[in-house]
């Protein structure tokens, strides 16, 4: 499981989250976290596929 890509938005008010991430993660690791999210339509199609699988 990856850290949620929204953690910067959630934590920036409380600590220097960018420095924290710099100190605890390599850039390559953070690249995996901050990937482009899927558009809503794509995530809905994924949910359709998942729901079909659950029904099988």
């Amino acid at each position, binding site marked *: *499981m*990856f*850290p*949620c*890509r*929204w*953690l*910067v*938005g*959630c*934590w*920036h*008010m*409380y*600590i220097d989250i*960018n420095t*924290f*991430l710099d100190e*605890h*993660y390599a*850039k390559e*690791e*953070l690249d*995996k*976290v*901050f*990937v*482009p*999210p*899927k*558009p*809503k*339509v*794509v*995530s*809905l*199609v*994924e*949910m*359709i*596929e*998942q*729901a*079909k699988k*659950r*029904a099988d």
Partner: protein
Amino acid sequence: MEQAMYFLEQKDMPTQWYNIQADLPEPLPPYLHPMTKEPIGPEDLAPLFPMELIKQEVSTERWIDIPEEVQDIYRTWRPTVLHRAYRLEKALDTPAKIFYKYEGTSQAGSHKPNTAVAQAYYNVKEGTKRITTETGAGQWGSALAMGCSFFDVELKVYMVRISFDQKPYRRILMETWGAKCIASPSTDTKGGQAMLEKWPDCPGSLGLAISEAVEDAVSRDDTHYSLGSVLNHVLLHQTIIGEETRKQMEMADAYPDIIVGCVGGGSNFAGQFLPWIRDKISGEKPDLRVICVEPESCPTMTRGVYAYDFGDTVGMAPIAKMHTLGHTFIPPPIHAGGLRYHGMAPIISHLYQLGLIEAVAAHQTAIFDAGVKFARTEGIVTGPEPCHNLKVAFDEALKCKETGESKTILIAHSGHGHFDLSAYDRYLSGELKDFAYPEEEVKKALEELPEIPG
């Protein structure tokens, strides 16, 4: 006499929605199917939506007719009034002219019925007997419940559990309009069952509720799914707000210099500004400023990006990287002002990337301060979400006071806050803080960040 309200006759209500996709300088990128990698086609979305809504999702027709049956229901509350906020202007001692288009006079108290009614109509027209949806605090669920009651179609709403338990009034509203409302996660879907097995006390999340509503719709032939924000057809239905406002501003012999609105899923703001932004795109009004406001605690457009992303080595603007939540995340209850953790509408992201709109963030105490000032001058108790707009509109009005400019500011006001009085109570009693999360909780949460596999 100062004219403080601009009424549009019902016969003059717009009869077409405006589709921004006809005028985008660059088209929205196509969506690829996650499995086949081919462009997503109508058949991929057919398990969820009626075909007419799927067509609207990808349409590039500039104007789309509003069906007569939908117009008839719109006329039970539309056109809504455009207000000139003279009392507020005097209280701020500003030379700015402040207008606000108020959507709180719909039966559900917000702008949401503009699309709820349309979606219920298209579903029934194509034979849908039953609709599912999700709702957070209940604004969308209640609007769709009303829309479904008008067209006599069954509705099941998956409501995020923490809101289901803590905010019963919108649930009661949904049930009054005939919808069935259950807490998510639920035992009614396999996805909900799996979550409850892992975490029996799970407070739920919007992502999980969506997943349950989708699974429910896919598992039955007579059922479709409905979404109240983000998607193109939802924003399209909301453009009646801005089209009405254009006529009303003309009645006031005014044109906005600045339009202010808040963004969660983006539907109300888009409904107001999309019919104006075409003037900026065409070059007719190049100086028009459109400002979206978001909460400082969830600043997806203005800040919520890891710093190095701003260097943008892959040619993708930060906003494109930050639109949706991983749906295992359960948000801490740190912001009372709504607008948390929605996906962003692709149209809004696209316009932001093109530099056609601006974004700013606001703290929650400041937005409630603005809400209280608005209530004490204009009388309306504003929902927490549009309180964001008030805060930034006030800031712009006060800048006018400094410069002596008499700019025209238009506020997109999405609805009242009568179901959000507990948030006002917390503000008025001094409980709301902008930086109040305990240090040990911060430390604990960060220690629990998962490892990244190599």
